[in-house]
């Protein structure tokens, strides 16, 4: 058989539990716009019943725990997709600058100078001994040379600025890794003392998501609520409460910053996030374009020089180099190409030594249609370069567009699990309020019953 005091206890305990539920609802509503917040839910449970005689009485309800609702697999997938998007975004932002340098649709690029160079020989062939036309050939050659130099320098400048961004990204990664290590300790401490670690986990997830936009992150559950973070290739970032700072150091030959983790060079092993996109532009895209430009400039100057040497200048002397000789293996040819002669009469337009012969000028002009640059004409090789630049941007753009849809879907799923819904919280608030009021009413009834009882024995 029950007693009134027990009933009063049940009512009070219920009020406490509902109060906890109202607190949680209030916290959910307060954090409706907090990034990374996962909604919380209260678990209410029956307290253990008591047996009096052969009757079992319930003893009320209590607040068992407050749970953060998140789907850790979904969180992982969001982070992975974020890494992919970070890489594509940072690649695109640089690649779009590259394509602006060669935007032939608006007349920017090498085509006009390349064509004008050969056209100057075409015009010279109409009057090979004319010094004005010869001067025009030198000018066209100089224009072409400086167009090569400018393109090459612009690429080098872009590479340099991306290099600075690499260092900044590494610094950001280090800062985030430190913060994650601190929060990791807090999670572990909360878990070991049996407290609700939800708020710390929210914070940690948010930091890991930020880190994912910078670099590829692989999460390993280290037990006890603690996480170990490495790159997908195993370079350590955070282990328990310890973070591992990465360092950068300039490569002695390229002067570009290489990334070191605990003494080993991990530059080539970064596969995701903004940092990977930056490295892709810096270490692959730009060097590949520079290589193509160098081949074009180097092979062109070698072919023109060879043909030029086969001819004779205005005074009948054998021709020399028209352009400065290309460096060995064409390395840096585009940046260093220059017209080697300054005297227009030194142009070897003649193939037989007579001043008015245009045979050699015609032969140099004919190079325009010869496939001597990796099996392509000069303009063909350049068109190939233009195609590659545009195509790289286009494919990154379409990957980025597809990826961003995937990411948004994943984020919607994540929001479905963890997002705070004001309608839901409002309904819960009413539910908990009603329960609280009812319990309070019960307490008040029991109070009056107790009063009645006391009055009964003590008139």
């Amino acid at each position, binding site marked *: 058989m029950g007693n009134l005091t027990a009933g009063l206890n049940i009512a009070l305990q219920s009020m406490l539990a509902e109060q906890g539920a109202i607190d949680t609802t209030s916290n959910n509503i307060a954090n409706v716009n907090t990034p990374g917040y996962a909604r919380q839910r209260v678990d209410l449970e029956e307290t253990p019943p008591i047996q009096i005689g052969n009757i079992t009485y319930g003893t009320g309800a209590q607040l068992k725990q407050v749970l953060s609702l998140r789907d850790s697999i979904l969180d992982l997938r969001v982070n992975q997709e974020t890494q992919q998007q970070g890489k594509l975004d940072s690649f695109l932002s640089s690649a*779009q600058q590259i*394509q602006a340098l*060669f*935007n*032939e*649709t*608006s007349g920017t690029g090498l085509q*006009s100078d*390349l*064509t*004008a160079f050969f*056209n100057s020989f*075409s*015009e010279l*062939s*109409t*009057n*090979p*001994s*004319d*010094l004005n036309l010869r001067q025009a050939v030198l000018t066209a050659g100089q224009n072409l040379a400086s167009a090569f130099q400018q393109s090459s320098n612009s690429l080098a400048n872009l590479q340099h600025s991306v290099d600075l961004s690499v260092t900044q990204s590494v610094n950001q990664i280090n800062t985030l890794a430190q913060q994650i290590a601190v929060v990791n300790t807090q999670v572990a401490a909360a878990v070991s003392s049996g407290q609700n670690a939800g708020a710390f986990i929210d914070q940690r997830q948010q930091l890991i998501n930020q880190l994912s936009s910078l670099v590829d992150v692989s999460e390993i559950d280290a037990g006890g609520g603690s996480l170990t973070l490495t790159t997908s290739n195993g370079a350590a970032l955070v282990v328990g409460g310890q973070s591992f700072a990465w360092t950068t150091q300039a490569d002695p030959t390229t002067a570009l910053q290489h990334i070191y983790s605990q003494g080993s060079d991990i530059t080539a092993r970064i596969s995701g996030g903004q940092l990977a996109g930056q490295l892709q532009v810096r270490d692959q895209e730009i060097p590949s374009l520079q290589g193509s430009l160098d081949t074009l400039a180097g092979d062109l100057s070698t072919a023109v020089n060879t043909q030029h040497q086969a001819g004779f200048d*205005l005074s009948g002397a054998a021709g020399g180099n028209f352009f400065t000789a290309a460096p060995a293996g064409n390395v840096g040819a585009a940046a260093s190409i220059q017209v080697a002669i300054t005297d227009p009469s030194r142009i070897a337009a*003649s193939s*037989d030594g*007579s*001043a*008015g*012969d*245009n*045979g050699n000028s*015609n032969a140099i*002009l*004919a190079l*325009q249609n010869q496939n001597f640059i990796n099996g392509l004409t000069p*303009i063909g090789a350049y*068109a*190939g370069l*233009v*195609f*590659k*630049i*545009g*195509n790289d*941007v286009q494919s990154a*753009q379409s990957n980025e567009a597809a990826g*961003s849809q995937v990411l*948004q879907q994943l*984020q*919607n*799923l994540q*929001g*479905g699990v963890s*997002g705070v*819904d*004001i*309608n*839901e919280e*409002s*309904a819960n608030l*009413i539910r908990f309020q009603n329960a609280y009021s009812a319990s309070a009413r019960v307490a008040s009834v029991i109070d009056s019953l107790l009063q009645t009882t006391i009055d009964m024995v003590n008139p």
Partner: protein
Amino acid sequence: MSVRLNPNILPDLLTSIQESRGNLNTATQQLSSGRRVNQLSDDPSAAAQLVANHDQAAQDDQFLQNLSGLQSKFQVADSTMSSVVTLLTRAVSIGTEGANGTVSASDRQAIAGEVQGLLTQLVSLGNTSYQGAYLFAGTASTTQPFTLDPATQQVVYNGNGNSNAVALLNGASVKSNVPGSQLFQNASGNAMSALGDLYHALQTGNNIAGALSEVESALSEVSVQRVFYGNVLNQITSSENFLSQDKVNLSSQENTLVGVDPAVAATDLAQSQTAYQSDLAATGQILNLPSLLDFLVH
């Protein structure tokens, strides 16, 4: 139980607005630039073909410019040849006069003097230059081709027998000069030596008829050679027509590659405007939807 939806719909709404805003920008850019391809990435393969197209068009321009220069040069050469014909005709005419047995010795000397003058003129015509280059020196265009020895009235050719070819489209070329030796010292009719011989014959009175027939065959040879200029000027005109047509084709190819159909672009613009506006309207309505809180009464 149904799947719980993401209560935060804002990202979806914003993405949709951003997307239609992007379409609107693209449509505006296409319409204002008249181009479908404004960045290499809009159509990499069209951009690469555009490079070749522009290269070819600029080459055509250069060929046209070359042809127009050659045309002027050939016109000068042709009018020089015309003067030579007039000059030789005059030589035949006065030579015939001198060959007449009734002409006195002193008159013959006077005619010989005029022939000498004609020879000097012929040499000077043979040394005509155009834009600083001798027209009839072969490819030795900086060397004065003909020099007259005043003592012997013999003309020496200092040029060479070569000619240049100026490249045109698709490997075609046009010959850009005829050597003076071929024009004026041809084995079939040597104008220079014919006048020299006529001068000597008139002076001495010997074999005037023989010298006269030399001049006549030189005259006919010069007329034959002159045909080259007429032909080459015709060739230039037809090449110019071809190149102009090629430029029209290239320009239409460029339009196909990167141009935009104005009607399509205008429709795109109208569509993307409508889409953008309806996205904004929808977002405004959705954001103004009431929540349960608005219906809970104390």
